[in-house]
């Protein structure tokens, strides 16, 4: 418990220290603080007894600060949360390392914002009370907004405002869902209001299906903004495009994961019937996202936006796999969270390192960088391959599991992994793999291989760097001959992610062992429901959807032939 509290408090102390020291010392203080947090997270990981049990630990109530509001200060997490905590603790120092030379103005504020964010994220991953989770979830917005708005690129202000409004409205909608559940529990049982996750999960599952439908729509609708799902995704490419490198790394690696984590932890268990009923709707949105965003990536020349759009497609696949409601799919979706955090963060770091040297992210302007920065190119190709799901790297494991989960999740199939969705969905999602290969290879071909293209003197630097952006500093004018390959510090920032990618890729067994019990827990309520539906075909909607999913592949095959 002490360690769990420390994980939340230490970054806060670090942030305050950062604001207090001199401008020059801020980066060192920030890095040291984040390393201390990493040490605390490592200690917690060693102390964590629930790696393979799927239970929550320490799950103890700390300060009784907000009990009058029904909010327990109860901390605890399971293996999935633990993985995300470690991911966060690793990504924050890495993203700080990569900004040492990129951020030259208002450094105190910059490093402090990252530590504020780390604290909030840790709280969100550790909370066993929805309001406590909400505090962390919502508070990430303030530092994130400031990071994009102050240290971002040229269009940083509209991007930051869009980020703020979308995320705020989304999270308030989730909050309404939580409050509705908690208030229902309070009035039904005649007890004072209680926001404990355990209570709400137990209560939510007893509600009639029609109520659960609304509850799921509200909670998941809010998280859908953060994941993001398609009609509400437009803030993400903007935010990524304008955020400083470290901001993109943390946004892609950690913050949007809170959305998926929230879906897994709250939306799915609190309203299983609602989730089943709405699964086709969300699955369709996810598919539109996967395919649509992959196509968008194909024509995107701004590398950073390309990665941002691809990340919408990837998160769509991860969520789609979760909506399959079987163990394999859930496992794949959870592992995808971690893997996407590693590989996308790595790609954003590479792009940031390049941007620092050329002040452009346009593939038409800059390309063939293999000849100028060979080591950098190795990292870039590596992370691109990881996100492309090259066998042997981490992306492959999760993508394979996701597709398998989606494919086998056919109510009629006797695979031992019952679920909804089915081969049609798997087929469409797999199309995205091909598209993914297309756009990633196109990017690599233009950007890394091919003839060397560099911005001409004086142009690239100013047009894209933006003289009013404090984040960009100008040595763009006499850049071309002074371009250096990645230095030791930058390798140090990227290496942990690359190593993790390889380890998970070649030896996924341990991490899968850890995830499996959690995935099994997550699908447990659904297994019961699906079995009930299979046993009682009279439920008209289930019957219809079952016939639909079996009939659809035939139609698809016909169309292909």
């Amino acid at each position: 418990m002490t360690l769990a509290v420390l994980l939340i408090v230490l970054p806060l102390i670090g942030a305050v220290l950062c604001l207090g020291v001199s401008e020059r010392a801020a980066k060192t203080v920030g890095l040291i603080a984040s390393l201390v947090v990493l040490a605390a997270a490592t200690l917690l990981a060693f102390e964590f007894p629930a790696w393979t049990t799927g239970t929550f630990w320490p799950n103890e109530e700390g300060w009784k600060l907000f009990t009058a509001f029904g909010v327990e200060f109860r901390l605890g997490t399971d293996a999935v949360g633990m993985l995300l905590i470690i991911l966060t603790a690793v990504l924050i120092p890495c993203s700080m390392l990569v900004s040492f030379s990129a951020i030259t103005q208002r450094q105190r504020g910059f490093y402090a914002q990252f530590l504020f964010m780390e604290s909030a994220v840790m709280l969100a991953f550790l909370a066993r009370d929805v309001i406590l989770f909400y505090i962390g979830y919502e508070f990430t917005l303030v530092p994130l907004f400031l990071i994009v708005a102050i240290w971002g690129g040229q269009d940083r202000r509209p991007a930051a405002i869009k980020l703020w409004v979308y995320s705020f409205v989304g999270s308030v909608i989730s909050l309404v869902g939580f409050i509705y559940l908690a208030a229902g529990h309070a009035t039904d049982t005649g007890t004072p209001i209680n926001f404990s996750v355990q209570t709400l999960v137990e209560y939510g599952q007893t509600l009639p299906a029609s109520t659960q439908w609304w509850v799921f729509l509200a909670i998941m609708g809010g998280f859908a903004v953060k994941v993001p799902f398609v009609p509400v995704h437009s803030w993400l490419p903007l935010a990524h495009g304008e955020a400083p490198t470290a901001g993109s790394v943390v946004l892609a690696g950690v913050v949007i994961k809170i959305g998926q984590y929230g879906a897994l932890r709250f939306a799915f268990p609190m309203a299983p019937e609602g989730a089943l009923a709405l699964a086709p709707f969300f699955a369709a949105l996810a598919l539109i996202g996967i395919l649509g965003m992959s196509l968008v990536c194909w024509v995107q020349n701004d590398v950073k936006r390309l990665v941002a759009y691809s990340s919408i497609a990837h998160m769509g696949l991860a969520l789609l796999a979760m909506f399959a409601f079987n163990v394999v799919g859930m496992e794949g979706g959870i592992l995808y969270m971690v893997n996407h955090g590693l590989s996308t963060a790595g790609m954003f770091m590479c792009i940031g390192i390049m941007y620092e040297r050329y002040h452009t992210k346009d593939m038409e302007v800059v390309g063939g960088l293999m000849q100028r920065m060979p080591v950098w190119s190795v990292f870039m190709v590596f992370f691109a391959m990881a996100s492309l799901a090259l066998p042997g790297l981490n992306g492959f494991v999760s993508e394979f599991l996701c597709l398998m989960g989606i494919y086998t999740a056919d109510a009629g199939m006797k695979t031992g992994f019952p679920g909804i969705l089915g081969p049609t969905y798997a087929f469409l999602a797999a199309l995205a793999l091909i598209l993914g290969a297309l756009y990633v290879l196109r990017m690599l071909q233009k950007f890394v291989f091919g003839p060397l293209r560099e911005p001409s003197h004086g142009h690239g630097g100013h047009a894209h760097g933006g003289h009013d952006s404090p984040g960009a500093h100008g040595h763009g004018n006499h850049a071309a001959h002074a371009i250096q390959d990645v230095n030791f510090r930058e390798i140090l920032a990227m290496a942990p992610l690359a190593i993790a990618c390889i380890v998970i890729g070649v030896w996924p067994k341990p991490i899968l062992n850890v995830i499996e019990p959690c995935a099994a827990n997550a699908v447990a309520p659904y297994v019961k429901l699906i079995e009930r539906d299979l046993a009682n075909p009279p439920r008209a909607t289930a019957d219809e959807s079952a016939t639909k999913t079996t009939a659809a592949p035939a139609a698809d095959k016909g169309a292909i032939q």
Partner: protein
Amino acid sequence: MTPAILAASTNLGPKFMLIAPEAVLFAGAVLCAVMGLSHARAFRAMVPWIAVVALIATFVTMLKVWTPEAATAAQLPMPMLGKYIIALLCVVGVGHVLASIGSVDRAVERQVASGTGAFDPVRVIQGEFYAFILLSLCGGMLLCHATDLVWLFLAFELCSLPTYVLVAIGRGADRSMEAAIKYFFLGAMSTATLLLGFAFLYGATGTLELSAMRESFQMQAQTGGIGSVAIVGMLLAVIGICFKLAAVPMHFYAPDVYEGASSPVAAFISFVPKVQGFVTLIVLLGTVGWSANGDSSIPPVIAAVLWMIAVLTMTLGNIGALLQRSAKRMLAYSSIANSGYMLVGILAGPTVGIDATLLYLLTYGVANLATFGSLAAIERNGHEVDSIDDLAGLRVRAPMVAAALAIGALSLTGIPPLLGFWGKLDLFVASAESHQRTLLVIMALNSGVAAFYYLRLVAMPFVQEPTPRTQGVSPVPSVWPRLSALIFAAGCIALPFFANQLKGEAAAAARTDLDKQATVAQSVEK
């Protein structure tokens, strides 16, 4: 008259005991007014501090005299409401006094100090200014003692009248005169509406005593429903109160008046009249419905009207705020929207909603003072800062003020874990628990809209770089407005640690004794 009421009216001793805090405050107000006319500059400079000391003394006196036994003996409809409201008005009132130090008489005092002008009692207004602040607070506190409509009305007016004067004298500009005239005439109209409503209520029940009125309504409800005269009276009273809340349909004056008033006065009139309005509303609605166990509720017509007022108020307030370029006008619309939120608590009823509204009054008061106080703590070329553009890059010119402004705005947005979030959470829960789902959703969407415009108060000082226009922006000479804004911004961060206690106090304040009194009266009759 029933014996119980006779007993109540003759039993004045406990009542006088309980108004000891207000008596202290009144003495402080008189002292302020007198000291403001002193020839000695040092004495005149002491006036705000007399006000502060008076408020602290009031607070201490209240803690001494306001015991549950004393409140029950005085037969107040809501025995502990006064304790909460007096504490709230004292604490936030001290902040308001600090925020206004140096805002009046600055030119005159400078002339006197430099010897270019002689002291002229007619030209200085400092004494009146602080005396009126204290009198208005005193009126707000007296509202909680009301056991009949006459007392309620007199306290209501004592709270209102000084605010009109404050608007007029606070700034010494033509616009403040215009604002004061507007405020005064509309205020007079709203008071007339309120009084007409009271007359109808008297006509419908034949009594001015709140507890007797409640009995009469309960009897009417059992025999064919509450009469239309009473409903009309109640509606008229609600409309009159809406002016004080700056709620639709009486909201339109707020932006003009706030803009015309000086920033400290605008801060004052965006808070104290709201306390006044909500206390009156709570006391008044307690007579037509609402029992301690929450089984009876207010008549459907009144509930429907309040529902519409709440929805329209928060929606129009937020949309209006979106369109503003003036910080004060924006905050005026924001205060309209916040009234809408608080009405949700009123609609949710006594068991879950009233304490939520009372708690929100506190969270709003603290965050609002941090925000408005920050505006009061800076000036541009010696004039009040008004446009949002003046706040660009404020962190360079006045970092502490910028921080206070941002924290206040974030708290008003409801960003957790700041104080404002807990107020909002409580209102959300109240509306969900009272099955006001539509209201819950509308309120949530509204706070999404609000997040957009409050963001300007964070982004302008911290994200924007200073512009040539903001060259002249500097903190005001007096350090106290800055300190007041900072203290209350710190309150937004620190008070959540005492959220349990605050919520407990609010819940205690929301407890009503009307039923108990009614049963006592019935048993006495038997």
